[in-house]
C-alpha cells in the first residue's frame, strides 16, 4: 500500500469537496447581501469565458489572434453555427470539423 498516494487522494477529495460543498452546507448560516447575491447571476458568463478563451487563443504558450490559429477559426465558425441553429451538438461538430480540417490542409 502506497501511504503517500493514499494521503494525496484523501487530501484532494477533501480539498475539492470543500470548494464545491462548504457554502452549500453552511446553508442559512451563510447569507450573502442581496447585492452580492444578485451579482452572482453573472458568474456563469464570466466563468465560462475564462475557461473558453485561453483554450482558444493560446497556442503553445503564446497568444495567436490570427486566422491561422485553428482553434480561433473553429470557435468563430462554431459560434456562427450556434447563433444560426441553436444546437450545442452542432456547435461541437462544426468546431471539431474546422480544427480537423486545419490538420489536413
Amino acid at each position: 500500500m502506497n501511504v503517500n498516494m493514499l494521503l494525496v487522494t484523501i487530501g484532494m477529495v477533501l480539498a475539492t469537496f470543500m470548494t464545491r460543498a462548504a457554502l452549500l452546507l453552511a446553508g442559512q448560516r451563510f447569507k450573502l447581501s442581496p447585492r452580492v447575491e444578485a451579482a452572482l447571476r453573472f458568474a456563469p458568463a464570466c466563468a465560462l469565458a475564462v475557461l473558453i478563451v485561453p483554450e482558444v487563443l493560446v497556442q503553445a504558450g503564446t497568444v495567436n489572434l490570427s486566422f491561422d490559429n485553428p482553434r480561433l477559426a473553429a470557435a468563430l465558425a462554431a459560434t456562427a453555427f450556434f447563433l444560426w441553429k441553436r444546437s450545442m451538438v452542432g456547435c461541437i461538430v462544426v468546431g471539431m470539423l474546422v480544427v480537423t480540417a486545419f490538420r489536413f490542409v
Partner: protein
Amino acid sequence: MQVVAFYRNPAWQLELRQGVRAALPAAPGVVAWGLVTGVAMVKSGLAVPWAIAISLLVYAGSAQLATLPLIVAGQPFWIVALAAFVTNLRFVIYSASLRRWFETYSQRRRAVLGYFTGDFTFAMFMERVRREGEFAHCDAWFLGACGFNWVVWQVTSIVGILAATAIPSEWGLQFAGTLALLALAIPLCLEWPGLAGAAVAAPIAVLARGLPFGLGLFAGIVAGICAAVAVDAVVGRRKATVQREGDELS
C-alpha cells in the same frame, strides 16, 4: 399514513429525467474531456489503480490535471491538496451562487449536490433558474444533469486510463469540451452585462495564465462579475429612463 421517500415522488423523478435530458447535448464535450483527463493521468506516470481511484473520488478534471506534476514529483500530500483547492477556487463562486436554491434541503442532500457540481451543470442550472426562477424539485433536475455528466465522465476517464497508450494526445480532443462550454456561453453573452463580464474576465485569464493553479481564472471571474454588475446598473438606469419618458408621453 406512510411517509413516501422523496425520490419515489413522480414529480421528482420527472425533474430528474428532465435534468438528464438537459445534459445530453453536452455529452460529446464531456466524453472528450474525460478521455483526455484519463490519458493525461496515466501518461504522466500515475499508476493505473490510483488514477482510477482519483478519478472516481476526486471528480475534478482541472484540479486533477493541475496537480499531476506535483504528485508525480512526490510532493507531500498537503501541498497537492492545497494546489487542488486553489485550482478549484472557482467552485466556491459556483456554490455561493447555488446556495440559495438548495438551502431548504437536508445537509446530506446538499453534500451530494455539492460533490456532483461541475462547470457544465452549474452553467445549465443557473440558466434554468434565470429563465424560470425557483422551481419545484430543483435538486432532482440538478442531480439528473450532474449524475448523467458524472457517469459519462467516469466511464470515458477510465477508458482513457486503461487505453492511454492507444490515444495520442495530438488529437486535441479536449477542444470538444471547450466547444460545449462555448455553446453554453453564447446565449449569456447576448445580453450587455453578460457580454461585458465575459469581455473583462477573458483577457485577464489570458494575460494571467502564467499564475500557478489557475489563479488567473479566478481573478478573471471576480473582475468579470464586477464589470457585469456595473454595466447592468447602467443598462437598468437607461431602461428606467426610457420607461419614464414613455409614461410621460402617454
